[in-house]
């Protein structure tokens, strides 16, 4: 579904990602784990079309989408849950979800998606008329996921969902991601929390200072001594 070849990303003079290649199949859930500064957020922003200074190819369903602006990529089935749960702070929960469905026109289907979000996160239903900056961090993260889901994506790009959340919310948020994956949404997750991501996603890559150092199924990575030492603290 998504194929990335020899991707090199620059920020001005600084090379952040030095030629990486990876792919995601339809329906897969893939984690990219790495420490702070490994280039994870830059990678997702490049895939979404928010950062255009790069070389290499990004193929979605065999088509090169590298030059498309973000809003056109959204129309082709990409959606992103940004780092630091960037919801629209002064819009209500309901308005945040509504804007998520911007590129869709099927009114009934949109209603249905909204109901699905509220079933997945009942707390959002209770708070739907509330301005979203008054939500707790965990609730905002749920809203950010719900909002991306409203775009009816085929591939969801998820940036650091666990940062700054209480453990109970981390579990909830990861459960929600697995649920979305079961419903057929492919997921690419970049995370610092290797333990949680490798137990939720089926396959993984390790990103170290802009290069992929390891790849494999989640079980393989979890039993890899290097991963255990560097990311799992065993």
């Amino acid at each position, binding site marked *: 579904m998504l194929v990335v070849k020899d991707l090199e990303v620059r920020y001005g003079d600084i090379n952040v990602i030095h030629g990486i290649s990876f792919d995601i199949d339809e329906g897969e859930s893939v984690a990219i784990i790495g420490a702070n500064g490994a280039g994870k957020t830059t990678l997702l922003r490049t895939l979404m079309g*928010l950062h255009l200074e790069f070389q290499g190819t990004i193929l979605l369903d065999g088509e090169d989408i590298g030059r498309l602006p973000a*809003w056109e990529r959204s129309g082709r089935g990409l959606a992103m849950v940004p780092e630091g749960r*960037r919801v*629209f702070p*002064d819009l209500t929960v309901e308005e945040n979800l509504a*804007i*998520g469905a911007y590129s869709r026109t099927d009114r009934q289907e949109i209603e249905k998606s909204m109901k699905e979000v509220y079933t997945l996160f009942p707390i959002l239903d209770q708070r739907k008329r*509330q301005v979203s900056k008054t939500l707790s961090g965990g609730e905002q993260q749920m809203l950010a996921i719900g909002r991306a889901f409203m*775009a009816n994506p085929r591939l969801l790009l998820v940036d650091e969902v666990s940062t700054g959340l209480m453990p109970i919310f981390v579990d909830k948020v990861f459960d929600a991601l697995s649920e979305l994956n079961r419903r057929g949404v492919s997921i690419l997750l970049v995370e610092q929390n290797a333990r949680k991501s490798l137990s939720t996603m089926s396959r993984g890559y390790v990103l170290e200072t802009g290069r992929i150092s390891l790849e494999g199924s989640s079980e393989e990575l979890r039993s890899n001594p290097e991963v255990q030492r560097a990311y799992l603290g065993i």
Partner: protein
Amino acid sequence: MYYATVAITVGIFMMLTMGLNIITGYTGQVSLGHAAFFGIGAYTSALLSVKAGVPFWFALPLAGLITAAIGAILGAISTRLHDDSLAITTIGINFVVVSVFQYTQFFGGALGIGGIRYPSVFGHTLTKPEYLLVVVLCILLGIWFDRRLVRSWLGLALRAVGQNEEAAQSLGVPSARFKIAAFAIGTAYAGVAGSLYAHFMTFINARDFGFPTSISIISMAVFGGLGTLRGAILGSLALGLAPEVFRPLVNYRNLMYGALLVLMMRFQPSGLIGDGSFIWESRQRVTLRLYKPKAVSGGEK
């Protein structure tokens, strides 16, 4: 007559502030050159009236439309700029527009344009209180449009772009188009205000639309509470009336606006009655306590 003159002036600034609030408040595009569009509206209306003999009632909407068209073009340029560079560019636009008016013969040069006709209905020239009524009607129309906008899809998209452009883009919102729309709508308000100003003063000069006027407008929006209609209304009312009420302040108006801007940014960045301001939050707390004694725990922070 004096009161009518003050009220008309305040009303014109209210239109200007409401327009800026759509561009800078809702859509987050900082414009420090709003007075340029005030000027474009005024000159359009003045020229239509003086050179083409177009009656006020047609010149007014035309000034709004033409200003909106020019606003849209500048909006299109602005979509390539962000934050600081946009703010600086809009200052530049203000100076360029003023210079064009000042140094072009077509626009009356340094003398400006005089002999603009005061509006009349069936041969009866409007009195000042009657003109005030026209201004009030324009404001009511502006308020009505603003409320419709905020509740519409377009308004929702504008606010989403204003609050987080990247998030909006990654949800499929083509943010550039909405910024252009915001500039067109906001400058239309300024164009109407310009027309009202030109026909009220009957004489206009490029200096009336300079950078200090832009600062006055943004001060009003910020003072009341950027991003809310009520803030735009209260801000223009308060800062528009202050120099009249405290007469000795007149000569220090710019000093007062500047100082207020600094103080508001430091102590009440949401403005006097914007969302999140001390007064508005207190009011909401009181209302909650009065009407919904049990709902206070519902996440209100």
